[in-house]
């Protein structure tokens, strides 16, 4: 695959103090044919050569439409899925080819918060046993005993510590998400991948959980990879944002920069599509409507994958895969014809 080299420019400029370094990581899911032999007839190229890094205390937002590979990317960088290609480095250590067993001690430092607070908690376990599971799995014995540690955690995430004997069905969606968060921070991880953590919640509850995540980050210097399709939430919580399309990162930059001067036409369209909760400002905005749907990740378009929906696409876009280039310090993008105003 020639694709792997294309991110070199980006990789070279990566930061030295990175907690997680992702280099040209790919994740393919094989498709097998029918019949007895189950021949390998193709791949779903869910993640195609993505590179980024995350430093301690930072939030990297990952946005994109459904099917763009953002959740797969989140799971792959935690090695919940084995990458098909590329390299993963956590805390200075190459973890790309570690086995499941070798990963166990590292799991303490990397955690995940899931979207659906209903299916990510075992309904037959009490909240106390759900939150104390990480201690058991990792064989950690807190000095003051597991139960008081669990109760501290519950208090920290805004749950009543008296409720440790209750079952998940006795809690509302927002409270369940707090249980999931308490479980994730139990062992003081360094990195948490949050996969759509607030999408299933009501607006007022969403804000509570977002604020909680921000407070915990300040307190424990957590690094977050915050995956969501809601650009407003991602923009609010993230220091940097990566925009994904069909398994690739189209643009990655400081969240302020990406909103004010997006250089990729896809980012531009995505931002323009989010309606502002402000009628007057909203009616003044100009919207870039993208035509059609996401192409199939089994047979992605040649050249730039976005060209089939891109309002600026030209012949070159079909022939040549755009390289990831640094357009401004820390502002990376992959486009042959970036938006003009980004050059300011």
């Amino acid at each position, binding site marked *: 695959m020639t694709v792997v080299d294309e991110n070199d420019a980006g990789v070279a400029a990566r930061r030295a103090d990175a907690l997680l370094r992702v280099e040209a990581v790919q994740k393919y899911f094989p498709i097998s044919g029918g019949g007895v032999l189950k021949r390998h007839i193709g791949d779903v190229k869910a993640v195609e050569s993505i590179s980024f890094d995350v430093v301690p205390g930072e939030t990297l937002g990952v946005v994109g439409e459904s099917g763009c590979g953002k959740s797969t990317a989140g799971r792959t960088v935690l090695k919940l899925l084995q990458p098909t290609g590329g390299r993963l480095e956590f805390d200075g250590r190459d973890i790309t080819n570690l086995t499941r067993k070798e990963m166990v001690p590292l799991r303490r430092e990397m955690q995940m918060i899931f979207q659906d607070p209903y299916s990510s908690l075992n309904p037959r376990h009490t909240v106390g046993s759900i939150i104390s599971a990480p201690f058991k799995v990792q064989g950690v014995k807190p000095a003051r005993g597991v139960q008081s540690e669990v109760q501290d955690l519950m208090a920290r995430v805004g749950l009543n510590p008296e409720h440790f004997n209750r079952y998940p069905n006795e809690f509302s969606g927002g409270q369940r998400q707090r249980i999931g968060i308490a479980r994730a921070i139990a062992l003081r991880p360094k990195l948490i991948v949050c996969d759509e953590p607030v999408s299933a919640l009501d607006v*007022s509850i969403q*804000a509570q959980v977002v604020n909680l995540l*921000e407070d915990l980050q300040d307190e424990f210097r957590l690094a977050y990879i915050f995956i969501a399709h809601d650009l407003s939430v991602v923009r609010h919580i993230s220091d940097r944002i990566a925009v994904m399309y069909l398994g690739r990162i189209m643009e990655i930059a400081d969240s302020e920069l990406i909103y004010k001067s997006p250089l990729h036409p896809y980012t531009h369209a995505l931002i323009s599509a989010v309606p502002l*909760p402000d009628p007057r400002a909203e009616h003044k905005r100009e919207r870039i409507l993208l035509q059609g749907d996401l192409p199939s990740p089994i047979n992605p378009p040649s050249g730039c994958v976005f060209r089939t929906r891109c309002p600026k696409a030209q012949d070159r876009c079909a022939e040549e895969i755009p390289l990831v280039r640094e357009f401004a310090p820390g502002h990376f993008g992959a486009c042959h014809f970036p938006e003009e105003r980004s050059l300011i």
Partner: protein
Amino acid sequence: MSDPFVKVEDLRVQFPTEDGIVGAVDGVSFEVAKNETLAIVGESGSGKSVTSQAIMGLINRKTAKVTGQVLFDGEELLSARPDQVRSLRGKRMAMIFQDPLSSLHPFYSIGKQLVEAIDVHQNVSNSAAMKQARDMLDRVGIPNPDRRLKDYPHNLSGGMRQRVMIAMALLNSPELLIADEPTTALDVTVQAQIIDLLRDLQREFGTAIILITHDLGVVADMADDVVVMYGGRVVERGNIDDIYYRPEMPYTWGLLGSVPRMDAGPSTRLQPIPGQPPSLIRLPKGCVFRPRCAYHELVPGNRCDTDRPDLLPVTPDHAVRCHLEPAQRREIAIERLGAHTVVDNSPAADATPSATPTPASGGTQEEK
């Protein structure tokens, strides 16, 4: 506001359950004119979806008690015979549901499902119905409509399915369209296409739209008037500018403060509403929002605990259900929402809005 095309008066829907009566909708009133969009905003359990189902006559009257009035072009629907409502439904009024995958039948082709909707209300040949269905798919922006007619729902993407739902709702050119979270399951890029489509169709057919959503961005984009619901009640009602730039109800402030904004600076912190939406079985005795309201102490004599506030007008179009004094409400709104809303409004349209509170405060007090 022009002539109300749909008028809902004191609508109440109660579901008896083992734990007690659930007052899902409690005395809701509003009007929608043709060519206008009314947004009903609220969180889960606020009664917004049940309200729309009651209008469409979709609530099983054997298991629920529905009272009040729904006037559709002058015709009262709640007391009408089921077959009368049925002949309107799908024809003069139609609904778009949130989840297109569960609202389309998985066993029948798109074409068959669309043709069925035509057959029920029009006396046309099968081929003519098929042509209508094809044209409507084309109209809602589905590429290759001829091929799509033969497809099944699972062959289509989420955005395409939602377009099929919209096409189905529009087949008989309804005069009222109820869209229940029409874009919630969709990506923003597709959402933008769907909003655009609904706006085009409204312009073309003069449809009255009732938009049910929790997304304040979509509301800002589409609505003319807004009804904010909480705990089965309307807690604030007004035109779009009233709700976004002159909100008067603590719950509305809470909602506006909870939404992150794309155009906000990097360090702004969200101001969530503490607590959770109420259980509709054991509603608080006084104001439904009292347990989550930060301002109830400003009201003398614990009235928020004991008296249900009435929905009282601030201006002829704008009404609010709150015990706080209008002057207090305005002060808090400016303090809480600051630059984005109330203040932001003053330079542009200073004369009218800043003049309104004074007569309104007098009026409200008299009514109490």
